[in-house]
């Protein structure tokens, strides 16, 4: 089986090399059949990679421990779903997953675009092939999942912290996101290579970008939820380099999503857009490098492996290529359209972009600082939470406010009178909210109070927009409210889907602020019958029990929860001891109040021999809004992604008129 896997990857290597060389030559010299051949090679490379992936999956399912990778990440006792997810539990397997998603996306992209923009797509093939070649090379020559060893009796098992449902979805979602950014990048490079300055590449990749961005966002939320529930250190985001590795490309992609709207509406920012998408893609490569090479101290980091230098080289090539292409085409990309006013929607989008990129770059700096300082000063400096928290506030709060302002400011230029009229009511709501919150004690955190007020502002503008739009529609058509509402969204999917996404971000902000600025924590060692008081709750340690799970011994302390004299039931917290893997994992107890979104979070830090337990208890107000935000985010994305027949027709007419069709023998 291993030979089949290795052979399949070699086939992928050959195919992607051919697609790169042949595709590049075909694009350069304008050879139709060669271009089709290269495209076929790229599509075929997905199938050969799929074969390799299936071989590995079968190896896991069959407990084939002659495969070193399977032996290192699985065991006989491992439940089946975790045997499957063990596929991406280690470096080689996750590289294979990356390649599988990449070739899958690449095949789909060039297949869907085969009849359109031939001169553009013909360059997309070699760019995607080049990326695929890089990863295939790593898999074939440097880090192969098909290394063979004398089969041991049983495998080493999967790290217990990976044995949970999140392991099945979180990495896949992230990879769908990371890798997805390669498609708009390739199209952007294709546009530059084919000397096209029109927005064809943007129009073609708009949905790709949104899908990748959504997947990356959801993947991060899943990761945060995992950290919160399973890892159980009491939080959901630690500014760990690997967490930042996913956040940075997401921020760049968010900026990109907004700035392409300006190119669409005003024809401006062409150079900026190409730069942004390149930045997003290079950051996703960098993110993969950070996670896989262990160069930065992190709880997620791996052994300093040999792929580090290769990855770095890969990123350098991508950066040099992108910068080079942008530089070459700079004269053609410049436009005459100018920013007319500092108070306009274009300007608001510009500020949004500046803030997002500033945040992204400060996170990049903080994350890369250990590497940089080691290289430059010989001393590895590590940056802590306060740095990241500071810049999140400095850039994040204005961004939050802008979310409410941007969609309502007029294009080109907005008059001051118009602004006052538009924002008087939401500003009033925000002010009132602030005052009420101070009365409730929110003044204990000024950034928190500001964030809440801004959130109220944004939510007010969103509600107002929906209300006003529905009313305007009703005035026009006389439809009943639900119909008008649905029609409003249906006819303006991008706008109102965008509003829903903004609402999700606001919910996210409120959840984050509540659980970090207004949380409480208490800790102490308790004997049975003793209690701790935290944030209005009284938690009493009642009993300690032990039971045998499928592959671990589970120790649980049972605690009673009371608030304001009312009995709220019990919560369990403890530890699991895994026999095969010889490891202990923390199992936290969380009691969710669905009315307020608050969590009572209990960690049994240390179970002592005398039956006493050292507990750490948190209250996390509003934290569940974060998870709710994820659902709203998904909904908003789906709305914006939904196909719009009218828009499709308009675009089809435009591109047909410009005779952007196949190279039929009937022409010339």
């Amino acid at each position: 089986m291993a030979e089949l896997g290795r052979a399949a990857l070699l086939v992928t290597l050959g195919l992607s090399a051919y697609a790169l060389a042949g595709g590049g030559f075909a694009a350069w010299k304008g050879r139709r059949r060669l271009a089709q051949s290269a495209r076929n090679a790229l599509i075929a490379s997905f199938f050969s990679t799929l074969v390799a992936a299936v071989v590995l999956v079968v190896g896991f399912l069959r407990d084939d421990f002659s495969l070193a990778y399977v032996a290192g990440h699985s065991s006989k006792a491992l439940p089946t779903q975790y045997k499957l997810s063990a596929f991406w539990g280690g470096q080689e397997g996750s590289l294979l997953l990356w390649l599988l998603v990449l070739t899958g996306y690449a095949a789909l992209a060039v297949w869907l675009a085969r009849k359109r923009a031939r001169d553009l797509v013909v360059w997309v093939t070699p760019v995607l092939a080049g990326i695929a070649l890089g990863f295939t090379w790593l898999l074939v020559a440097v880090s192969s999942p098909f290394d063979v060893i004398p089969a041991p009796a049983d495998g080493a098992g999967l790290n217990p912290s990976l044995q949970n449902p999140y392991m099945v979805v979180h990495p896949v979602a992230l990879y769908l996101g990371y890798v997805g950014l390669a498609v708009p990048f390739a199209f952007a490079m294709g546009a530059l290579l084919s000397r096209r300055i029109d927005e064809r590449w943007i129009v073609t990749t708009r949905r790709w970008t949104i899908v990748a961005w959504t997947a990356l966002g959801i993947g991060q939320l899943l990761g945060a939820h995992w950290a919160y529930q399973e890892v159980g250190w009491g939080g959901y985001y630690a500014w760990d380099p690997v967490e930042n590795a996913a956040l940075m490309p997401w921020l760049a992609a968010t900026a990109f999503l907004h700035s392409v709207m300006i190119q669409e509406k005003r024809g401006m920012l062409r150079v900026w857009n190409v730069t942004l998408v390149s930045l997003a893609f290079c950051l996703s490569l960098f993110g993969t490098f950070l996670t896989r090479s262990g160069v930065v101290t992190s709880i997620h980091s791996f052994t300093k492996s040999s792929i580090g230098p290769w990855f770095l080289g890969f990123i350098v090539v991508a950066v040099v290529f992108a910068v080079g292409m942008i530089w070459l085409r700079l004269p053609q990309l410049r436009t005459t359209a100018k920013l007319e006013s500092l108070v306009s929607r274009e300007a608001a989008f510009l500020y949004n972009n500046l803030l997002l990129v500033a945040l992204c770059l400060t996170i990049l700096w903080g994350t890369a600082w250990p590497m940089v300082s080691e290289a430059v000063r010989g001393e590895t400096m590590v940056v802590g939470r306060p740095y990241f928290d500071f810049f999140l506030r400095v850039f994040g709060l204005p961004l939050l406010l802008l979310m409410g302002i941007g969609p309502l400011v007029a294009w080109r230029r907005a008059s001051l009178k118009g602004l006052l009229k538009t924002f008087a009511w939401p500003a009033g709501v925000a002010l009132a909210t602030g005052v009420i919150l101070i009365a409730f004690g929110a003044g204990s955190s000024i950034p928190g109070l500001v964030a809440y007020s801004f959130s109220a502002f944004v939510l007010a503008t969103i509600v107002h927009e929906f209300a006003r739009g529905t009313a305007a529609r009703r005035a026009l058509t006389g439809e009943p409210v639900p119909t008008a509402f649905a029609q409003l969204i249906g006819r303006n999917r991008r706008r109102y889907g965008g509003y829903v996404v903004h609402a999700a971000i606001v919910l996210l902000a409120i959840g984050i602020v509540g659980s970090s600025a207004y949380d409480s924590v208490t800790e102490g060692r308790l004997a049975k019958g003793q209690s701790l008081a935290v944030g209005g709750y009284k938690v009493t340690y009642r009993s300690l029990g032990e039971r045998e799970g499928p592959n671990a011994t589970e120790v649980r302390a049972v605690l009673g929860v009371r608030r304001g004299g009312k009995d709220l039931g019990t919560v369990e917290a403890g530890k699991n001891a895994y026999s095969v893997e010889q490891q202990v994992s923390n199992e936290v107890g969380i009691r969710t109040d669905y009315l307020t979104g608050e969590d009572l979070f209990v960690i049994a830090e240390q179970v002592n021999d005398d039956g006493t337990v050292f507990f750490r208890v948190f209250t996390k107000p509003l934290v569940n809004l974060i998870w709710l935000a994820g659902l709203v985010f998904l909904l908003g994305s789906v709305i914006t992604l939904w196909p719009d027949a009218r828009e499709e027709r308009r675009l089809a007419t435009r591109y047909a008129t410009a005779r952007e069709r196949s190279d039929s023998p009937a022409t010339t």
Partner: protein
Amino acid sequence: MLAAALVVAAVVAVALPFLREPAPASDALHELDPAERRLLEAEEERDRALAALQELEADHRAGRISDEDYRAVVGSLRRDAAEALRTLDRLGADAATVRTSPLRAGTSDAEAKID
């Protein structure tokens, strides 16, 4: 062996375009010539201008933009749209084919045969 079958399949996939058309009339990839490019850009300009006008009207109707602001901007937007349409007419007159359906349908048939 499966590996051999994989290699064969890969080679076939790659060779397919050459096998299907051993001696085509033209192997040239259609690239947009400068005229077509200008036409495309003009179309985008027109779409942008018309969309901006439409959005202004919709915003005005919905009450997002006051009468004053509307009046201040609508003139220049209308001028931009007229300009874009004029440019497009001028370029469109140079182009051989515009919207005549039979020719476009013929092109699609040819496309289908090639692929």
